[in-house]
């Protein structure tokens, strides 16, 4: 486990990578608790991603109860949305892969 300042460092590092637009950490209720983007945008991302997470986890679990969702990558025309669901939190990174 990393210490809290190391977590901060890790977030900074991720943001420093090429093409990373922003990072949002949301809790299980879909409320953004940490964001590097505009408030409105991050709230929007949080809301949409929460639904997506519920739906996709539901899909995986319905197919096999022992399985679980660990990561979602959404490739879009403009960005790539990376979602990493944890137990209580989920992290979203929006990256622009064409830049890199």
């Amino acid at each position: 486990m990393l210490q809290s300042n190391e977590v901060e460092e890790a977030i900074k590092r991720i943001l420093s990578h090429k093409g990373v637009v922003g990072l949002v950490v949301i809790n299980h209720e879909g409320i953004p608790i940490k964001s590097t983007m505009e408030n409105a945008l991050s709230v929007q991302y949080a809301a949409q991603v929460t639904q997506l997470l519920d739906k996709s986890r539901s899909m995986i679990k319905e197919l096999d109860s022992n399985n679980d969702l660990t990561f979602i990558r959404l490739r879009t025309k403009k960005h790539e949305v990376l979602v990493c669901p944890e137990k209580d939190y989920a992290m979203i990174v929006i990256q622009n892969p064409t830049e890199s």
Partner: protein
Amino acid sequence: MPPKGPKGAGGGGGGKRRGKGRRDDDEYGGYTRKEQQLSKPPDQEKLTETQLKQDVQRYLVTLDPTVIRDRVRWDFNERAYLIVPYQDETITLFHMDSKLVHKDHAEEFKKTYPYPMVPRKQAKQLDKQMQEAFKKSEPPPPPAPAAPTAEASGEAETEGEEKKADAKPEEEEEEKEETKEVTRQTKFLNQFDYSDRSTQTYNNPLREHACQTQPPPRSNYKDYCNAWIIYDAYENDVENRPKQGKQHGGGAELGAIGEELGEQVAGAAPGEDGAPQTPEKEKEKKEKKETVRKERDKEGKIVEKERVKMRKASVLEGQAAQEAALNKSAEGLKILERLVMQNVHHEVLFDFKYYEDASDEFRETGEGTILPLWKFAYDRAKRLHVTGISWSQSEPDMFAVSYGSFSFTHPITDGMVLVWSLRNPAFPEQIWVSPRGCMCVAVHPEANCLVAVGMYDGNVAMIQLKPDEDNATSSVVLKNVHVIQKHRSPIWSVKWGEDDMDGDPNFYSCGLDGRIIHWTIDTSDSNGVGGLGGTEICILHLPVAPVTGPDGTSYKLFGCARVLAFHPKEKTTFLVGTAEGNIFRCSSLYGSRFQQIYNAHFLPVAALEWNYYHKDVFISCSEDWTIKIWDKKDPEPMYVFEIGVAILDCCWAPYSSTVFAAVTEEGKTLVYDLNVNKEKPICCQQIVTKKKVKPHRIQFNPYYPILCVGDDRGQLTTLKLSPNLRILPKDSRGAPMEGDPKVNFEIGKMTKLLSLVRDPESITNPKSLARPDEKQVKIVLSAMGKK
């Protein structure tokens, strides 16, 4: 009048009484006698008026006139008439006691009769009331027909009415019945069936009383449920169950309550018995209870506080909560970073996975190229030298790197060990900072969470990367416990040995003090933490005569060990390269003798490695510009490659028995395939851009065709080998060989190469081997002779 007859016959007062009843009928029955057309029997005797008025006297006697008295019967025995005795011929058909009581006996009757009788006046009033009520309810009848209303009261006749009746000319009007008042009152109550109201049970009045409790606190909860959510909940429950069993907190509390209850019960019992309890004891008990109560209150408060804390923590805007949340998500961040890196290094990843240099097919000499992929650098390690690289044998993308310093004239004190993953070139997976420079590193071949490190000050350390259950926060580090056991000079190489019989990991280290030390986990540490305990395996005494010191004492010179190489199959056999240029072949089973000593190089041996396939072949390189390939039975090298520049490291390829790679001081990487070209490298490429930078270490990945080169700027470069550099053996059908056929093919390839250069005599008569053998035989023989 026909009724008169029977009346007359009845005679006396009785007849009159009956007649009265009859007249009542006539008078008040709604019809009169005049209207009556009495039918007379035809044979009725017609009497004159006088005859009718004449009283016919009839007597009522107690004797039956029909009974024959003085009846006689002829008796044949006596021959005479005998009087038959009188027999009572009365037959009682019906018997009923009269309810009538004589006037004179009325008082007596009252005494015996238990029920009250309504006095006559009251009865009159009652009747009047009744009549009035009746009149009111009905339209007032004409005065004449008022009689029947009075008659409706039946026997309850009033005197006034009687007077009215007297006014009418009737025969029995003079009659005054005294008994009448008795009869009209004798509505006798049945003693047996009659039930008085007062004997019935009391009917309680119905009452309604309503009250309302305080409504329980409400909260809204919203969630959805699925089959898998239920399943997960059950799984969690099963997981948590044994842990709950361990927690005794709740049970203890219950126990305390139970004790107190028991105390109360115990306190109550003697009181009931009447046994006097001393007031002191009671006081004590009270105090006890008081304290218990206070304690519980305190606990309650603490719990409450904790709850408040929890509630505060759950307020997600709180900064502490945020930090906690982020700490929890550290693992997720790692994954995220990896995937971000995957996007960043997308092209490199494609090169690594799919790019094959197409130009290789057209190179007639069989040469190949190496393509640089990721570069690994960590800011804090920039000024440190890469002193050791060790790939994990089970995880294809993981490797550990030790950072320290080779410049002993200007040593850099600190060092570190980083564990890298190919998936994240930007940041290491694990960081272990050491106060001393790390000189070498080795990842355990099976349990890759164990990393052995040798340090500049002669100490060793074992790092457990995986956090264990008790210590979840950081990786565990074991260090050597005793200062005496440590090396007295920098450690140049550590290598894992085979796990011992208990399955405990152990490793060997060699240092410049010429000692080989075997390290095991020592739990006898005074702190109980556990450490590493070392055992000296051997000291590398050089095969020269002892040197005499200035004061006359003689010293045995020892070689400064620089490289250690364990045989991949024979686990007890290992090679040690020294700074003097010798290579010792030793066994870990006995330390006093060496199996063989090769005079390999003029300068320190830089690297030493056994071949992966052929069990007798090993490679060595040195700063004396040479790479040498050895057969262990031969004191002379099989192949010698003179590069013309110092060689800093070399290693065998894991996929072929004839391929090896080396790095030069100039920063060139050489790849040889003896099967293709025995004189020249098939690839020679500059991999460091700056001239001053020296690559110090090179290692093949055990799974992918990748080389990893570490330089003295703390940077690591991964290089992909082009197809020509990694020609895999193919069977007759053209499919790549696997398993044993491949191993045999590779061994055959190497054997063939050796046979090309081997001098047949050297096999039959190895010089260096023969001498120690003869000596040994002599020693053994002499020892046996002595015994």
